[in-house]
């Protein structure tokens, strides 16, 4: 292992890791927002929107991110919708993740007993107040492990961004291998950088899940 070389390319990998982190976080936030809106549309049985949402969830969950990205990046410009690579990555991740987040939130909301909603309504709370103060807090606790699993899954999915010419970690490693045959060092840096991003997330997820599983409200 050539440490001098590694030191010389560290800034390059730092920049790439920052890109992965930045686009990943933006995509995940958008995905969570999409998921929340879709889950609300399903919960409130909003007529047409509910059907569209269901179709979207199936579409996003049954196609690979890479194919979604190719379609957005290479296909859509032909009908006049152009995106730069970074926006494309974020939109693609949000499209994919929105479906998974919808499922996470929807199952959380569904897991709250219907009679809990009724007991809030019987106290005179409006539907919105009931959702906000009674259903959502309980659903959030139930959805948290699935949500965290989605966050980790989506962060890992960013590793295909290089396909739409985003200069992320994969792109950088591939580049260095192709140009200078620095295979060992490049793979080492690649794994190291992903560990640095994913290990804390994964530990946080485990910690969170354990806390929620072994303790409910009030212990």
């Amino acid at each position, binding site marked *: 292992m050539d440490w001098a070389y590694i030191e010389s390319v560290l800034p390059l990998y730092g920049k790439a890791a920052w890109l992965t982190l930045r686009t990943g976080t933006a995509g995940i936030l958008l995905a969570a927002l999409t998921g929340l809106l879709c889950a609300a549309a399903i919960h409130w049985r909003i007529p047409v929107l509910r059907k569209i949402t269901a179709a979207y969830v199936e579409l996003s969950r049954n196609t690979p991110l890479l194919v979604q990205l190719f379609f957005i990046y290479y296909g859509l410009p032909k009908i006049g919708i152009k995106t730069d690579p970074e926006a494309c990555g974020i939109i693609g991740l949000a499209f994919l993740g929105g479906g998974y987040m919808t499922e996470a939130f929807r199952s959380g909301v569904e897991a709250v007993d219907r*009679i809990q909603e009724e007991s809030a309504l019987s106290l005179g709370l*409006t539907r919105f107040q009931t959702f906000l103060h009674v259903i959502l807090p309980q659903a959030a606790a139930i959805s948290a492990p699935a949500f965290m699993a989605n966050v980790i899954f989506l962060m890992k999915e960013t590793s295909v961004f290089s396909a739409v010419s985003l200069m992320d970690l994969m792109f950088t490693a591939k580049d260095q291998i192709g140009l200078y045959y620095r295979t060992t060092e490049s793979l080492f840096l690649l794994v190291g950088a992903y560990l640095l991003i994913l290990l804390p997330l994964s530990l946080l997820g485990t910690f969170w899940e354990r806390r929620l599983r072994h303790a409910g409200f009030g212990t």
Partner: protein
Amino acid sequence: MAEAVLSISHLTKRFDDQTILEDLSLEVREGEVVVIVGSSGCGKSTLLRCINALEDIQGGEIRLRGDLISHNRKNLPELRQKIGMVFQNYELFPHLTVLENILLAPVKTQKRSRQNVREEALALLERVGLKEKADSWPRQLSGGQKQRVAIVRALIMHPEILLFDEVTAALDPEMVREVLDVIVNLADQGKTMIIVTHEMSFARAVADRIILLEDRRILEESDPETFFTAPKTEQAKKFLRTFEFNRKNKAEA
């Protein structure tokens, strides 16, 4: 005669093609305690749920002091604030403490000041013997304690009428008493109530009027003494017999 708080006229409730209640009429006057009995699945709970518009109805109307209770009226939340309901499985909100459970509705819907409601909540909790549990979480309470909290949660709204839906059915036998005592107490204070229960001695003690619901309608309606000692209908006699046990070949003492 006191004014009618709740009047139900010609109520019909169907689930798909199954009729649960048919052409049922009932009036509950101010300060009256009405106990509804009947075999399982006779529609007692459904009737309570209709009064609170948790079920839509297929015919007739329900009025609370003249105001129509209907699924598609804008004022439904306000009317529901005037109807207190206590459920079989307590349905406390598990993510809120005992005190927060009680404060949620008055603070959010009646816009009463937190401080004010808090004092009242603590006073009510003290009356049911749970003042020291104010900051506990629902899961830390026994069934009987949860149910007493649920009653306080309904009371704090100052409802015009209270609905109790088999509130002791999920309780261990030794906890039934503490909950029923609270309800008897409320009756003594002159609260208007409709109670669905399987506890016959409690029914006899607390009721001003007993209603037997059977075959989708009110079959018998009388004061408790008459109901338990001289039931008019064959069905009422049959129903009361289900609470008696006899061994044929047991030697008489």
